[in-house]
């Protein structure tokens, strides 16, 4: 037994909380610094708790909390469902921006082609930029379609479950 720790501290707390401190325990507390301190602080905290309980604070009704949880759950589900769509929208914006850049470049190429032989213009049209743009479009469409299919399947399985 020392000031910091006594194996009977839990017993002291239990007795203080129940309000039934035995004579034997009271004698022990007089001789044990740790238990005496525990007793004092337990009394302090119980007084603090009693002051709060005296005000009889009423928690919100269970139905109100239930409704709030439902609304929160629905908002979470909606957020999860729209994350992918937001991503696709972002990709769409990037693609449109890239397309506009390519159009501007192509426009300058066509203007320059008036001064060059026809085969040179055809060559520029068949350049990697065209294939890159077309490939990007096809990939984006495929990715978007796949995502929508996946979302549809998930929604279908959720609705079908009992």
């Amino acid at each position, binding site marked *: 037994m020392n000031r910091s720790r006594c194996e009977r501290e839990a017993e002291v*707390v239990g007795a203080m909380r129940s309000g039934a401190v035995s004579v034997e325990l009271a004698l022990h507390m007089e001789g044990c610094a740790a238990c005496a301190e525990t007793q004092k602080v337990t009394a*302090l905290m119980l007084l603090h708790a009693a002051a709060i309980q005296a005000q009889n604070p009423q928690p919100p009704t269970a139905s*109100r909390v239930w409704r709030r949880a*439902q*609304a929160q*759950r629905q908002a979470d589900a909606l957020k999860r469902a729209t994350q992918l769509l937001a991503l696709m929208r972002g990709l769409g914006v990037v693609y449109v921006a890239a397309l506009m850049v390519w159009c501007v470049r192509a426009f300058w190429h066509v203007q320059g082609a008036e001064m060059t032989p026809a085969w040179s213009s055809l060559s520029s049209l068949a350049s990697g930029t065209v294939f890159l743009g077309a490939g990007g479009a096809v990939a984006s469409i495929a990715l978007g379609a796949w995502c929508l299919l996946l979302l549809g399947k998930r929604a279908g399985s959720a609705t079908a479950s*009992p």
Partner: protein
Amino acid sequence: MAVHTTDACEAPILWKDESAGAMDEQRFQTLYDATARPILAYLIGVTGRRDVADDVLQETYCRFLVRQPGAMEENETRRYLFRIATNLLRDRWRSREDAQLPERFDEGYSENLEVRQDDDVDTQMDVRRAMRALKPRERELLWLAYVEGMSHREIAAATGLSAMSIRLLLFRARGKAAGFLRPEKGRV
């Protein structure tokens, strides 16, 4: 599948895992009735503010329902709820909006600590002084240990700290709180 509606949105909500043992409203009502009052008292005791306590209490149960933990014993559920509440309090204190909260203990709820007829004036002043001087973490630990009567292991589960840390922190908090009491006080 059960279909519910909410005030926030009239569209039906589909609780797809309800049949898998998730909590229904009746079970929630039973749990809430058994646990809400002690948790509310804990939150008021730690924050000293009724508005914050109410908000955190509701958020605690919302998190519990959204996470839908598996089957738990009554005591385990209680500890889990205390843990959520404790974590939410910590999050609030860390956030900018409630940065001043620990320093504003009992502001707006000071009537709770007003002197009652059956209590000694000095003791009430001791309580108020001690609660103001203690850090939120210390008030948490002291409340869980001495009002809720939790063991070190249970407090560790409720706060996310190790039992060894609890032992040390609780010892320090106890000594600090005892320093605010007059020698003759504390006898109940």
